[in-house]
């Protein structure tokens, strides 16, 4: 990493790393701004003149210089934080001025580059004379020029990684600026890769692992040893063109360092492998370069094994080690490999800090009881998008934590040598042949609690406020970039923290559902015609109509046995699952009742053979739980029943008083008739909600009607159509006695009027009996119509049920006419967004993402639910 001299630029091009801080150096009038304008985008160039103008309305006001630089540094800092090339257009002839900029570059790990315009004084003075706003003393230019020339030789030492000096105006005109990728930038390499952990000279294990991974390892004998003996040469290739990635620490401690090095160097040379350095390589190189290093930690074995190697090969080795780059950014930025891992703010950047982090990890400077450096576990706080694969810290098992994984499984200490297949994310290991070296610190001594929970689950015990608070944008597979407004997050935070169940259970919240457009049929507000028309217009061919149950929405997670919650959900305690409401609260306040329901459901699933069929030991179901009164008792007592009581009492009194007035001949006939009709409507209303109320004394009084098999191990079942869901559930309900209730449904071909008429008649019959109505869904769980993602479901509610939504008297013609005017677009947009978030939550959970990634989606659904939308829709 040590090229870049002071390059006097004659006619060629200037190479600038594509992420760097470019510092223009030159006296006033030397042509810095012209140069910057010509070679960089206007937004990349921060000019001190422009900032003086911004803060003081005058680009020549020297008294504004401190403020101008304050602002300039602030903007430059933000640009660098966002990894944007930035050019500083100021004289920068003084060392103090440059020091601040170098400090800034270091803070954001940008490579500092100096481009010096060392023009003859006369040219600069002539140019300044032509500019009326540059009226400063004659002494200024020579003074700056002498500062500049005094600085020239020291620029590299000050810390600039590249220094280009242009001193000929003709060359300035011809020169080209080329942007070159950083050495760490291998984004165009997309794999597939086999990433291999710390080898430490364990050649046999390495060879076995490579063969296990499908590589062909050919060995040749060739001259390579000083005394004329033969050494091994290796040709390693993969028939499918896979590439190996070595995470460093190839050397030290193990039995056969030379062959490991030969193999890896050969693979790298032939483009079959990439390799990043480990701390042991760095130390070895220093030793080979004649530096004074303490020979410990296995270096002695390496040196011994390297004795007798040919001078040519040793020189190749030095060259190889010297050329190793701290880390690599691979596969369009999706994968980072580094020996000791890398924090997000250091990835794809270059500085001494980046290199030292990549080599040694996040050391705190402390030394532990075994004499080893104490490391801060950066992975616990990792929030980056890129996957980070690293080694360095031997652990018994490679485990994912926040999209990072350490695959050093201590082969040299008698553990195993592990590779991670990318993009498959599959771990492949071979056991160590023997304990080649006794570990200084026992492998298990990390924070391991006696538990069968994964590292990720242990870490996930605690969510961070930063992961949910404020305005958030969540990207989902079904719909990119769903915005959650800060006000909504606020309401959701309060509900989550005060009322919701353990967030580890909350892998899903159901979306809201829009009704159909209003009907024009007399006395009807909603009618199936509009629901079918909606989907027909969206380009959907067939739909399923499911009876809508008047109960309460319930999400049920049920596990096959008691140990599953701990193993899969990270929740230790008793129970085989959970039942929660649409806002994430526990459905039952009575644990025994919940348990009885879950056990009953579990047994029905067992009897139906669904566990084995879906190869899972847990299932998440979307359900309706009846009776409505079980959950809505408060609502009935505080709203529905009182309205009925007040309405009937008031209207009875009105009718009898009007009758008395009519008896004495007052002209109240019309009013009397009207109030009799109103009283009849109140009676129907009370009848309507009474239908959904029955007392619950024990489990046998409940009815559970599942309608979606949302997810099970390894699978979110949104790729199955609704008939599949209905059939699977019907089989479970068959075995579930009276408690489980299969939902009646019809499939409707929208091109077939008879099919539609049949479903409409079915709806009329059901709703005439007081039924709530039906839900119409595209036959595919996730349906894309001609206008993108289709509504996952549309409800069509029956006329009796709507009395408890729109009020006892809604069916009076004068009311109905107004109620038909309603806007559905916000509700529908919300339904789509919540649906996408809910599916995303399940998908993240199923692929074992960190809890915060699942929680983010579920939290988003809850937040969106606090949007002000007409609650009657």
């Amino acid at each position, binding site marked *: 990493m040590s090229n870049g001299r002071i390059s006097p630029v004659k006619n060629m091009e200037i190479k600038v790393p594509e992420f760097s801080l470019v510092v223009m150096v030159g006296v006033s009038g030397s042509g810095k701004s012209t140069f910057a304008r010509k070679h960089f985008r206007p937004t990349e160039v921060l000019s001190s003149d422009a900032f003086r103008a911004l803060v003081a309305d005058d680009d020549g006001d020297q008294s504004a210089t401190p403020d101008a630089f304050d602002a300039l540094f602030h903007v430059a800092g933000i640009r660098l934080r966002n990894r944007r090339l930035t050019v500083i257009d100021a004289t920068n002839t003084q060392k103090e001025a440059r020091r601040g900029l170098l400090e800034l570059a270091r803070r954001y790990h940008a490579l500092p580059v100096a481009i010096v315009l060392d023009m003859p004084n006369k040219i600069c003075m002539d140019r300044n004379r032509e500019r009326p706003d540059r009226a400063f003393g004659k002494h200024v230019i020579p003074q700056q020029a002498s500062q500049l020339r005094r600085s020239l030789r020291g620029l590299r030492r000050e810390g600039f990684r590249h220094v280009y000096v242009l001193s000929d105006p003709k060359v300035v005109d011809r020169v080209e600026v080329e942007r070159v990728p950083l050495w760490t930038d291998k984004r165009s390499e997309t794999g597939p890769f086999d990433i291999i952990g710390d080898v430490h000279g364990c050649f046999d294990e390495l060879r076995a692992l490579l063969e296990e991974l499908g590589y062909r390892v050919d060995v040749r004998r060739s001259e390579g040893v000083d005394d004329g003996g033969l050494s091994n040469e290796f040709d390693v290739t993969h028939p499918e063109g896979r590439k190996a990635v070595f995470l460093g620490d190839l050397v030290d401690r193990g039995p056969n360092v030379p062959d490991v090095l030969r193999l890896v160097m050969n693979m790298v040379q032939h483009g079959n492998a990439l390799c990043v350095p480990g701390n042991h390589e760095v130390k070895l190189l220093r030793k080979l370069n004649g530096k004074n290093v303490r020979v410990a930690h296995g270096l002695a074995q390496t040196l011994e094994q390297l004795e007798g190697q040919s001078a040519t090969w040793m020189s190749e080795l030095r060259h190889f080690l010297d050329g190793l780059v701290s880390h690599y950014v691979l596969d369009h930025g999706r994968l980072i490999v580094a020996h000791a891992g890398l924090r997000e703010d250091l990835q794809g950047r270059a500085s001494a800090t980046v290199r030292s982090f990549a080599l040694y990890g996040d050391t705190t400077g402390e030394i532990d009881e075994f004499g080893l450096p104490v490391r801060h576990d950066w992975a616990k706080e990792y929030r980056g998008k890129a996957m980070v694969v690293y080694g360095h810290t031997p652990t018994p098992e490679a485990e994912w934590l926040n999209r990072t994984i350490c695959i050093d499984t201590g082969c040299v200490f008698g553990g195993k040598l592990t590779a991670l297949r990318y993009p498959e994310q599959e771990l492949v290991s071979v056991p160590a042949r023997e304990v080649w070296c006794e570990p200084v610190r026992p492998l298990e001594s990390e924070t391991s609690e006696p538990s069968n929970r994964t590292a990720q689950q242990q870490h996930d015990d605690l969510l961070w406020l930063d992961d949910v608070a404020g305005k958030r944008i969540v990207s989902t597979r079904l719909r990119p970039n769903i915005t959650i407004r800060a006000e909504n997050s606020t309401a959701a935070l309060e509900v989550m923290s005060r009322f919701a169940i353990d967030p580890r259970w909350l892998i899903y919240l159901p979306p809201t559902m829009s009704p159909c457009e209003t009907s024009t049929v007399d006395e009807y507000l909603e009618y199936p015609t509009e629901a079918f028309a909606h989907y027909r217009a969206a380009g959907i061919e067939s739909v399923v109509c499911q009876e809508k149950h008047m109960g309460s929405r319930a999400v049920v997670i049920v596990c096959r046995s008691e140990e599953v919650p701990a193993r899969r959900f990270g929740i230790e305690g008793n129970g085989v699952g959970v039942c929660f409401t649409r806002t994430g*609260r526990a459905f039952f306040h009575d644990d025994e009742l919940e348990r009885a329901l879950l056990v009953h459901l579990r047994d029905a699933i067992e009897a139906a053979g669904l566990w084995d069929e879906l190869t899972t030991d847990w299932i998440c179901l979307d359900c309706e739980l009846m009776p409505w009164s079980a959950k809505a008792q408060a609502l009935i007592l505080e709203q529905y029943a009182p309205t009925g009581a007040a309405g009937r009492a008031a209207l009875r009194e009105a009718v009898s008083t009007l009758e008395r007035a009519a008896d004495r001949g007052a002209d109240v006939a019309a009013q009397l008739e009207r109030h009799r009709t109103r009283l009849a409507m109140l009676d129907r209303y009370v009848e309507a909600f009474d239908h959904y109320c029955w007392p619950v004394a024990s489990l046998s009084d409940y009815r559970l009607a599942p309608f979606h098999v949302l997810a099970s191990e390894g699978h979110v079942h949104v790729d199955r159509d609704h008939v599949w869901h209905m059939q699977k559930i019907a089989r479970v309900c068959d075995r579930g006695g009276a408690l489980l209730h299969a939902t009646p449904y019809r499939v409707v071909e929208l091109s077939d009027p008879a099919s539609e008429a049949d479903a409409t008649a079915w709806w009329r019959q059901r709703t005439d009996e007081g039924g709530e109505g039906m839900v119409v869904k595209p036959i595919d769980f996730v349906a894309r119509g001609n206008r993108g993602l289709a509504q996952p479901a549309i409800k069509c509610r029956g006329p009796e049920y709507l009395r408890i939504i729109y009020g006892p008297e809604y069916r009076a013609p004068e009311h109905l006419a107004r109620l038909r005017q309603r806007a559905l677009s916000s509700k529908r947009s919300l339904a789509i967004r919540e649906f996408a978030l809910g599916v995303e939550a399940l998908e993240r959970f199923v692929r074992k993402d960190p809890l915060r990634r699942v929680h983010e989606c579920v939290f988003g659904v809850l937040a969106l639910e606090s949007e002000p939308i007409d609650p009657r829709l």
Partner: protein
Amino acid sequence: MLLTISTTREPATDLGYLLHKHPDRVQEFDLAFGSAQVFYPEVGPELCTAALLLDVDPIGLVRGRGSETGGPLGRYVNDRPYVASSFLSVAIGRVFGTALSGTCKQRPELVAEAWPLQVRLAVVPARGGEALLQRLFEPLGYSIVTHRHPLDARHEEWGASPYFTVTLTKTTTLRELLAHLYVLIPVLDDDKHYYIGVDEVDKLLRHGAGWLANHPAREEIALRSLRRQRSLARMALERLRDEDESESRVEAVERSAVEEALEQPLRLHRVRLDAVRDALHDLGAKRVLDLGCGEGKLLRLLLRDKQFECVVGLDTSIRCLEVAAERLHLDEMAPRMRERVELLHGSLTYRDTRLEGFDAAALVEVIEHVEPSRLSALERVVFEHARPTSVVVTTPNAEYNVRFAGLPAGRFRHADHRFEWTRSEFATWAASVSERFGYASTIAPIGDVDDEVGSPCQMAVFRR
């Protein structure tokens, strides 16, 4: 909604003059919220009855309002069209305006006459029950007959409704009768359908002239008449209410009227805050967190002590923080004082980096509002990550509950409490937290110690 007014003063038909409504005609009036009819079911010299029938448009109540959510008017299913409420007051003002103002052009001498009058209100929502009806009307000299309606005759288990049919009888002027009804009907209902502005005070004073000032329940009347509007923050929260939760639970943290009423005689709230302040002072803390600061009572106390250089309150309820900001007069605070205090919205079950680096944290009556299953998250947020040098925690002593006469056995002091601990449960918890997170703890009583059941409240002080 129906209101009838009868008199037996002969000739009873004179009622028509006073009401300015002819007994033989049926008259209709348009109102902003519907319409009203006046007709006479009984007309005779011995008995004359006028009826005011209010036809409130139930759809209009919901439609066309700025916000279609929250509050009883936001729902189509509500009792407003059927009960005596502020709508009736407005209708009285419009339809019987001349009588209410005491004018009668044709027979001015009748205005000041006291007549035997009887009023029947078909449905009155008395939020406060029969006792409230008596409290309001008996001091004014009415005799009251009430009939309470059941919620649903077929569901006896649901109990009684808040609705009464009420008959009020008194010999008085019609004008006074109407003024009483005008003011007291919304008080019974404890709600108003319109925005309460400053002119509401004038209205109250005008119609209450001559009787309100001496009414023993005048404070209650004023308070209920000038009811405040709901905040937007609360409405957002309400949308996330589960169907089985009553409003009171959502509001529980904001108002703990029951708990305060129980503890009031002991002045426990004040004693507790003083104890916490003293503990924080003695710990030498300078930068202090009040976790679960509620409406900011402890914050206010701490600000008075100059030892506390920085006082940060955190609460999960935005509504509470709004009130706290108001009570602390944050907006008009002097700059140096303002710099000492900060309010944060957050949650104790999510790790929060803003809480790191403090000398002490207080959790005053907070832990018992957290689900037991979420308590471990709170412990880690506070003791592992925020990790102040000291932590002061208070919580009720469940053993003491038997000393509260108003508290049924087995019930918590507050509807939102998820648990209440005995002294030994609290001690066990404190010891476990100390051990896991490397703190040492001591426990002290708060309030007078009862030999048998201990103090009403208990406090643990953790030191690192």
